[in-house]
């Protein structure tokens, strides 16, 4: 159990560093969800299943969705990013109608 805890905490620290260092904002949001997911495992290990469920549902799920929606609202991420055309874009479109 000790080494499982060490592993989970190491995952948390590495994902937290990834949030700071990743240049892709969407990947940073995903990494912040991983921090919460690992934290919920820690809560299970210290026998707090109620808090673990809250952390998994709110921290890993809800806050990630809200952060991504906020990125979209701020124009920092769109469905047409990364040079992949969106399904609705015409092939000749300039792709600047996001």
């Amino acid at each position, binding site marked *: 159990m000790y080494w499982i805890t060490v592993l989970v905490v190491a995952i948390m620290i590495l994902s937290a560093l990834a949030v700071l260092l990743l240049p892709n904002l969407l990947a940073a949001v995903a990494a912040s969800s991983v921090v919460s997911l690992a934290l919920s495992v820690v809560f299970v290990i210290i026998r707090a*299943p*109620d808090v*673990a*469920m*809250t952390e998994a*549902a*709110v921290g890993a*799920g*809800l806050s990630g*969705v*809200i952060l991504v*929606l*906020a990125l*979209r*609202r*701020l*124009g920092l991420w*769109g*469905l047409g990013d990364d040079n992949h055309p*969106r*399904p*609705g874009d015409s092939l000749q479109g300039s792709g*600047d109608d*996001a």
Partner: protein
Amino acid sequence: MRNFTSLLFAGGLGFFLLVLAADLPVGAAPMVAGEGILGQGPEAVGAANLVTAVVLAYRGIDTLGELSILFAAAAGVGLILSGMRRRADQRPDPEGGFILLAAADLLFPLLVIVGLYIVLHGHLTPGGGFQGGVILAAAFFLPLLGRPGDSLNHAVVNWVEGLAGGAFVLIGLWALAVKGDFLAPMLGKGALGSLFSAGTLPLLYIAVGLKVGAEIAGLMSTLQETEAAEP
């Protein structure tokens, strides 16, 4: 200079946290109220899940405060974003791919069942109104991810939210009138561990679950309906 100030602040904060952590008896908390609640909670309240007994019976008014905070936050987001609705001439995002659409259809009933189960069994097993409510909100938001043109019926969401919040306060006032304590458990305790036990606690958790679910589903739907900023 600014970096240096930030470093100083972070270092100072870390130092204080370490000082606090060094004095913290990890694993052997000095429980004063906790010992009493652990000892008499199951008999006094009748909830097999002691966390629920604390959240709804011993500290029920704190839960009402949490609901008010959540309501204020959701109302603030709605107020700010209400002027930024997608205009009629802007086309919404295209539909999701096959995997997202099929997964949304498949997961919707499962998520609703899991969310309702967690809400209804909040007084027996880990979980409760807040966790189940968030899962319910996720269930109703998932189809919107696949079909961004659709929208939740905000009138229904607001009615569910208002009625659930009102029901929570009314149950509390009912207990105040009968027993003299706001949110005191009512309706008898029942057999410890059965579904119909712990008096009004399951009813309170159903109200909390519906309110949280409606609030968060409405919040995410509002965020999704706002048009993306022009790049």
